[in-house]
């Protein structure tokens, strides 16, 4: 959306009004904010706080760099401090955003010619949705590990041949079992760029598998979630 605010006018760029809480599963939702002047590169994360609360958390950006909204993907942690509060937010409530941060991203030149494999567990899919929406011509395969098939967040946005859903607790995925077991049976082109995002155990195991397949650590980019 075009902004009519003159660049020389300083506005408070830290606080954003919540536009929508988009429920994706019973536990997971996306928090939609106006993008306004917020500029970022797909793959980066923000620090998110709730007005009046002293704590903040980091979230990868779920929306594309050119989308109208700034979106993050949140899974509510049972008995957690922060995510239940985020979930209770309503349209119009204020959140504090700092960033963007991080170097987990794709070089423009690679985006045009490279082959990408995105490996995500759970909400670790967030930066990859951002990348796919930002670079529509991207040559990618997205391997997404979840427990149940309904956790395939916004699955319809990816074409079937590019999205591989690994489900460990039901049999409705492309592959029924752990993501890392699926990965063991895969072959990839030698110059593939690998991007891993999710919990540290998944990343550790996936790194080992990829290194065993002969890929260099420099080809593999990681973003750890907790």
């Amino acid at each position, binding site marked *: 959306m075009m902004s009519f605010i003159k660049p020389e006018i300083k506005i408070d760029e830290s606080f954003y009004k919540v536009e929508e809480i988009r429920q994706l599963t019973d536990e997971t939702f996306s928090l939609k904010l106006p993008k306004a002047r917020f500029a970022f590169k797909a793959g980066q994360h923000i620090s998110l706080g709730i007005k009046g609360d*002293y*704590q903040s958390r*980091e979230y990868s950006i779920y929306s594309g760099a050119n989308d109208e909204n700034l979106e993050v993907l949140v899974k509510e942690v049972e008995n957690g401090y922060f995510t239940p509060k985020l979930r209770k937010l309503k349209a119009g409530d204020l959140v504090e955003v*700092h960033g963007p*941060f*991080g*170097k987990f991203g794709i070089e423009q030149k690679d985006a045009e010619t490279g082959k990408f494999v995105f490996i995500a567990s759970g909400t670790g899919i967030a930066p990859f949705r951002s990348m796919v929406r930002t670079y529509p011509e991207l040559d990618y395969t997205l391997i997404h590990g979840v427990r149940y098939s309904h956790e395939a967040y916004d699955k319809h946005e990816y074409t079937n041949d590019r999205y591989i859903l690994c489900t460990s607790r039901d049999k409705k995925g492309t592959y029924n079992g752990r993501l890392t077991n699926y990965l063991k049976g895969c072959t990839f082109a030698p110059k593939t760029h690998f991007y891993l995002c999710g919990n*540290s155990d998944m*990343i*550790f195991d996936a*790194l080992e598998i990829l290194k065993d397949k002969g890929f260099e*650590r*420099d080809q593999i980019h*990681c973003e*750890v979630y*907790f």
Partner: protein
Amino acid sequence: MQKKRNIQTGADQKFPSFGGVRRGLSFSPPSEGSGEARRVAFKTLGCRLNQYETDALVTDFSSAGYQLVELNQSPDVVVVNTCTVTNQSDQKSRTTISQAARANNNAVVVVTGCMANNFKEKLENQDNITFVVENNRKSSILSLVDAHFSGEILHPNQLPQDVFRYEPVRQSLHTRSALKIQDGCDNFCTFCIIPMVRGRAVSRSVESVLENVRKTIDNGFREIVITGVNIGRYEYEGHRFEDLLEKILEVPGDFRVRISSLEPDGFGDRFVELFQHQKLMPHLHLCLQSGSDKTLLRMRRMYDVDQFRKTVNRFRSVYPDFNFTTDIIVGFPGETEEEFQETLAAVREFNFSHVHTFKYSVRKGTRAERLENHVPEKVKNARSLQVRQLSEENRMKFLKIFVGKEQQVLIEKIVQGTAYGYGESYVPVRFRADGVQKNTVRRVKLLDLKGEGENMYLTGEII
């Protein structure tokens, strides 16, 4: 009793304009009636960046006519530059504040540094502290103190926020002068409080850095230590760390350059090649933190041990005596005995000449606070001891390499006819101080290894 100054910050409170009290512009006369200069004492805790900032403040206060004294010499002003990186740092900072305030009842007590950010409200409520100044306003402490003595009402929040406002160091508490090129960090390692207390990563302009280098050399320093929170991530208008470093090395003059603590990611061959420059000293404090890939992931460190190994090997293939020192955290949540053994193996393999060992301590608000499987204190103590012992063994092995070799030693002090200094490789050297002066560089032939543990040093003679 001086101490607490009740300053209202309400909208109806009129503050004097800041411009009128900037250093040197309206400095009030020394202690009324005494005819003597006011006296200031500094106490610094923590990292080299804090030391640099204190040194810059020392220069500021000295330029304004203050006399630099020790804490026990009845200063009019005490500045405590605190640290909050571990629980122990908090404790030391608290103790220092209490001791400084108790011993100097009439002094203005200014508390600044990372702990001042982390516990601002708590410290502001302490009666023994006059002012609490956040890191990003630290460079203007002289103005605050000056305003206080002039009877003006100035709240620390009215000081400008600028992390690079420091003047080049002229009078220092050290022989080397640090130079701040960067502040803050965006890495969000799960154990680290620094992004919360130092803020987001920000880099100083190339021109400002170079001007500072030139002035620091003009001020007589022979060694500059490039410092910051995460200097490898320096980025200013397309100039990265290597670009800046090359420009610093090109500044004319007889000086040498050291790099302070560095994160082990993102260097290329160009960085290695820069060490061929005779001004750049062959030593890096490269922060490994753990020798276990699993632990590194939980710490959210973006490298693995093999990448670290490649960096070390790359340097030592070109410069065999290259000195690496490091930081290690023991007892990080979930660290198993096996993972700890991997750390010991890494410390042994990389032959660090010094390991700065930290026992993990919870920092409120960090991600690691919420991790499971926190390690008992007893286990942390035992692991810390093992790393320190290994570090001492390494140190001996590393220093032995230099026996029979030569080093250019910068003399830091001369005590009872013995000169103390550090060679290019950051090895401690002592030799007879015949006809030599502090802050000069001498070529020394290294003859023997003496001392024990971390106090081990090389002895030598001037060639």
